[in-house]
C-alpha cells in the first residue's frame, strides 16, 4: 500500500522561483505508519506543507524504498508501534544505512518511550494527534544534519575540501537560515548536482554522497589509512590501497574527514556529542595498548573463568599492564577525567551518542576486563575480533596518547575501558598507535559502533589526543543489520562492563556479575574512583543497554538485560555527577522491566553470530568495546543463566534503589 506521493508537482518546481515565507517546498518526506487513518491525515498535512510525500504502511516497505533510492528522501517520519517492525528498529536502521533524519511519532507520550526515541537517534518525537504546525518545521532537521556533517568535514581540515567546502558552507548556511523555499530548493538542487560530480577533486559536498560504509569497507579504509600513516593518508592513496571498485576518491575523502574528526575527538578535543565514544576509545587504546600484551587470552577461557574474583582480575590486569598489583587506580587520571567529564557530557550524547557510546564503551570495557581475567590467548582473540568489527574505535585510540584523556575516556565510556586505561595510563605510556589501531578497528564493527565511538569521544572531550570525531559523523560504518546487531549486542554486553566502572565494583557486584564481570572486576577497582564519571557513562550505557538488551533474543539478551539492570543500578548508585545518569537510568530501567518486547536493535537474529564474532575479538577488544560485549555475551551465555544474571542485577538494582539519581 504504497502511494507514491504525487506531490503537487508544480509546487516543487515552482518553489525555486517563488519566495514562500513558509517552509522549503518539495522536501521529500517518507511517512511510515501502520494506521490508515493517521497515515491519510499526515499525508494531507504534509501536502499542505507543500512537501513531497510518500506514504507507506509497512516498515519493511519503507526500508526497501529507502534502500532502492538512498538519495530519494530527505526525511522520514515513522510511527513507533508497528506490527512488522518496531519503530525504533527502523529508526536505527535508517540512521545506520542511510543516515537520514528520522522523526518518531506515537500516541504514546510516556517519558520512557520518548527517551527511547532520543537514544535511538530520532531527531524529534511527535505525539499524536499531530497538527500541521508540528510538521511545518521538520525541514530544520534536514538542514541541521547537513550542517553538522559539514562542520565535521570542515573541522577535519581536509585538504581536499578546501575552498570549495567553505564556499558551499557559506551558501548552505544562508540557505538554512533563511528557510526560504526558493533557497532551500536551490541548495538542494546544488547538492544533487554535486553528488553527481564524483570525479571532482574538491569534494566538499553540501550533501555528501551516500556511500554505504559497511564494516568491511570501513575496515579496508582503516587498514589503508594505517598502512599509510594517519598523517600521510590522502584520499587518493587510500582509494588505491583499498581498491574497491565503484568507490570514488570523493567518497574516501569525506569519509576520511569524518574519520579524522573522530580521531581528533578521541584525542580529547571533544566538541560534539560524539565525544564520548571517541574519547573513551582513545583512552582505552592507551590502556589497551599495554594490555595487548595480554592478548592471547581466550574468550573461552575467560568465559570459563568468568567467575574470576575481582581481586584476581585486578591483579591480572595490573600484571598484564606491567604494574604493581595494586588496584588499578589512577588518581591522577581520574581527576583529569572527571574534569573532562564534567563538562563533556552533552545531553546530545544521549541520543545517538549514547547508543554509540554504549556500544563502544562496552567493547572497550570488555577489553579491559579481558586482560585481567583472560589469558593472553583470549585477549588476542578479542583483539582480533575487535579489529574485524570496526577500526574506528581503535584508530582513535591509537591516537590518544594522553593518559589523562585515556582516563577520561574510560570513565566516560564504559567503566571497562576506563579501568584499563587507568591502569595502563599510569604506567604505560599511551600505546603506540599501531597497537591501538588494530584494536580499534575491531571495535568498530558496525556503524553503530563507530557512531558510538564518536559519541563517546565527544564526551570525553579532551581525553585523548585522538582526533575527534563527532557523533554526527557516524562514522559511516553502514553496518549491515548484522553488524548493527553486533554493536548492539556489545552494547548490552558493556552493560556489564559498565557496571564495573560505575563503581559497582567487585565488592558489590562480583558476586553477581562474576561471570561477565570477570573482566569487569578490574574495572571496578579503577572505576570506583571514577564513579562520578561512571554514573555518567552508566546513564548512557543504560540507555544503550536497554535498547540492546531488549533486542536480543539470544543469549545476548541476557547479557543486556543484566547489563541494563546493572547499568540502571549503577546509574543511580553512582554519584550523579551527570544529570544524565538519571535520565538514562530511568530509561534503562523501564526497558528492563518491560522486558523489551520490541526490538530496538536489529541484532536479534544476530545474537548468535555476534557471540561468535565477539568471541574471536575478545582479545582485540581491549580497547574496543566490542570485544567486551562479546566476552560478556559469551560469559553470560555460557556461564550464567539469564535468570541468574538478571536476578543478580535486579537485586543490585533494588539495593541501589534505582531511581534517577
Amino acid at each position, binding site marked *: 500500500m504504497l502511494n507514491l506521493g504525487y506531490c503537487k508537482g508544480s509546487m516543487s518546481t515552482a518553489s525555486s522561483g517563488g519566495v514562500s515565507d513558509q517552509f522549503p517546498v518539495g522536501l521529500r518526506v517518507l511517512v511510515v505508519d*501502520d*494506521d*490508515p*487513518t*493517521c497515515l*491519510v*491525515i499526515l499525508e*494531507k*498535512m504534509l501536502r*499542505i506543507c507543500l512537501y513531497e510525500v510518500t506514504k507507506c504502511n509497512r516498515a519493511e516497505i519503507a526500508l526497501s524504498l529507502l534502500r532502492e533510492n538512498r538519495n530519494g528522501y530527505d526525511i522520514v517520519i515513522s*510511527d*513507533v*508501534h*508497528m*506490527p512488522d517492525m518496531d519503530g525504533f528498529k527502523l529508526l536505527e536502521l535508517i540512521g545506520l544505512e542511510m543516515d537520514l533524519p528520522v522523526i518518531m511519532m*506515537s*500516541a*504514546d507520550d510516556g517519558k520512557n518511550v520518548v527517551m527511547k526515541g532520543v537514544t535511538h537517534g530520532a531527531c524529534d518525537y511527535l505525539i*499524536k*494527534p*499531530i*497538527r*500541521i504546525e508540528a510538521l511545518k518545521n521538520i525541514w530544520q532537521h534536514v538542514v541541521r544534519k547537513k550542517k553538522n556533517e559539514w562542520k565535521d568535514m570542515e573541522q577535519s581540515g581536509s585538504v581536499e575540501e578546501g575552498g570549495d567546502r567553505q564556499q558551499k558552507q557559506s551558501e548552505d548556511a544562508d540557505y538554512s537560515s533563511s528557510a526560504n523555499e526558493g533557497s532551500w530548493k536551490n541548495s538542494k538542487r546544488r547538492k544533487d548536482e554535486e553528488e553527481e560530480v564524483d570525479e571532482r577533486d574538491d569534494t566538499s559536498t553540501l550533501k555528501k554522497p551516500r556511500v554505504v560504509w559497511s564494516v568491511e569497507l570501513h575496515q579496508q579504509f582503516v587498514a589503508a589509512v594505517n598502512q599509510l600513516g594517519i598523517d600521510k593518508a590522502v584520499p587518493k592513496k587510500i582509494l588505491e590501497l583499498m581498491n574497491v571498485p565503484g568507490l570514488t576518491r570523493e567518497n574516501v575523502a569525506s569519509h576520511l574527514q569524518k574519520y579524522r574528526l573522530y580521531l581528533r575527538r578521541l584525542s580529547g578535543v571533544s566538541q560534539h556529542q560524539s565525544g564520548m565514544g571517541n574519547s573513551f576509545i582513545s583512552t582505552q587504546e592507551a590502556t589497551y595498548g599495554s594490555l595487548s600484551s595480554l592478548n592471547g587470552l581466550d574468550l573461552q577461557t575467560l568465559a570459563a573463568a568468568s567467575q574470576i574474583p575481582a581481586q584476581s582480575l585486578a591483579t591480572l590486569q595490573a600484571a598484564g599492564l606491567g604494574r604493581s598489583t595494586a588496584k588499578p587506580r589512577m588518581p591522577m587520571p581520574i581527576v583529569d577525567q572527571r574534569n573532562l567529564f564534567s563538562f563533556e557530557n552533552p545531553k546530545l550524547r544521549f541520543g545517538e551518542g549514547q547508543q554509540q557510546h554504549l556500544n563502544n564503551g562496552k567493547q572497550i570495557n570488555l577489553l579491559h576486563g579481558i586482560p585481567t581475567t583472560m589469558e593472553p590467548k583470549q585477549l588476542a582473540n578479542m583483539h582480533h575480533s575487535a579489529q574485524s568489527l570496526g577500526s574506528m574505535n581503535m584508530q582513535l585510540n591509537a591516537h590518544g596518547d594522553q593518559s589523562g584523556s585515556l582516563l577520561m575516556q574510560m570513565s566516560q565510556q564504559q567503566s571497562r575501558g576506563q579501568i584499563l586505561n587507568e591502569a595502563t595510563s599510569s604506567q604505560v605510556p599511551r600505546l603506540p598507535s599501531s597497537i591501538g589501531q588494530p584494536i580499534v578497528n575491531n571495535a568498530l564493527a558496525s556503524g553503530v559502533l563507530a557512531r558510538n565511538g564518536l559519541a563517546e569521544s565527544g564526551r570525553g572531550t579532551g581525553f585523548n589526543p585522538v582526533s575527534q570525531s563527532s557523533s554526527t559523523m557516524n562514522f559511516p560504518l553502514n553496518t549491515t543489520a548484522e553488524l548493527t546487531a553486533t554493536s548492539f549486542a556489545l552494547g548490552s554486553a558493556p552493560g556489564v562492563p559498565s557496571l564495573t566502572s560505575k563503581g559497582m565494583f567487585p565488592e558489590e557486584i562480583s558476586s553477581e556479575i562474576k561471570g561477565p564481570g570477570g573482566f569487569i572486576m578490574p574495572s571496578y577497582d579503577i572505576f570506583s574512583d571514577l564513579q562520578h564519571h561512571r554514573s555518567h557513562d552508566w546513564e548512557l550505557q543504560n540507555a544503550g543497554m536497554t535498547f540492546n538488551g531488549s533486542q536480543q533474543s539470544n543469549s545476548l539478551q541476557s547479557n543486556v538485560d543484566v547489563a541494563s539492570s546493572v547499568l540502571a543500578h549503577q546509574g543511580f548508585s553512582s554519584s550523579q555527577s551527570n544529570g544524565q545518569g538519571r535520565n538514562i537510568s530511568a530509561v534503562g530501567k523501564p526497558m528492563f522491566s518491560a522486558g523489551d*518486547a*520490541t526490538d530496538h536493535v536489529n541484532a536479534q537474529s544476530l545474537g548468535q553470530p555476534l557471540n561468535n564474532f565477539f568471541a574471536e575479538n575478545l582479545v582485540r577488544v581491549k580497547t574496543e568495546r566490542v570485544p567486551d560485549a562479546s566476552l560478556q555475551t559469551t560469559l553470560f551465555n555460557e556461564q550464567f543463566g539469564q535468570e541468574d544474571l538478571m536476578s543478580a542485577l535486579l537485586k543490585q538494582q533494588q539495593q541501589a534503589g534505582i531511581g534517577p539519581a
Partner: protein
Amino acid sequence: MASTALRQQLSIMRQSLFDEGILDHDQVSYLETLENEDDPDFIENIFTLFLRDSTKYIDSIEKALETTPIDYPVMDIMMYRLKGSSASLGASKINGETNTLIKNFHDGDMESGKASLQKLKAEHANFKEKLAVYVGMLKQAKLSEY
C-alpha cells in the same frame, strides 16, 4: 432545497456529536480545514477508515486478551494505535476509554482492564452507529451539491 435541508440536518447532527462528546469539536474542525477542493472527500475518508480500523483494533485487543498467555505486546500496539487514530480523528470518548484501558493494563489491573474494554466496546458501537449515519449524510450532501 434539498441540499440546504440536508446541510442543515448535517449541521445539526454534527453539533449533536460534539455535544454528546463523541467527537471533539476542535480536532474535527481542524481536520475540516484541511479539506480542500483537491480532496473533497477527505473527512469522509478518514471517518470511514477509522470506523473500519477501530473495529479491527478492538477485536485484536480482545483476542490478545483471550490468548494464554496474554499477548501483551500485540495488545500494546493495538491500544496505542487506537489511541493515536482516535486522537487524530477527534473521537473523544473512544480516546478516553482507550486511555483508561491502557492505564489499567499497564497498572496490571486485569479486572478493571477487562471492564474498561467492555466499556470501550460499548462506546465504539455507539460511535459506529452515529458516525455511519453522519458519513452517509455527508456523502449525500456532496452528491446533492454536484
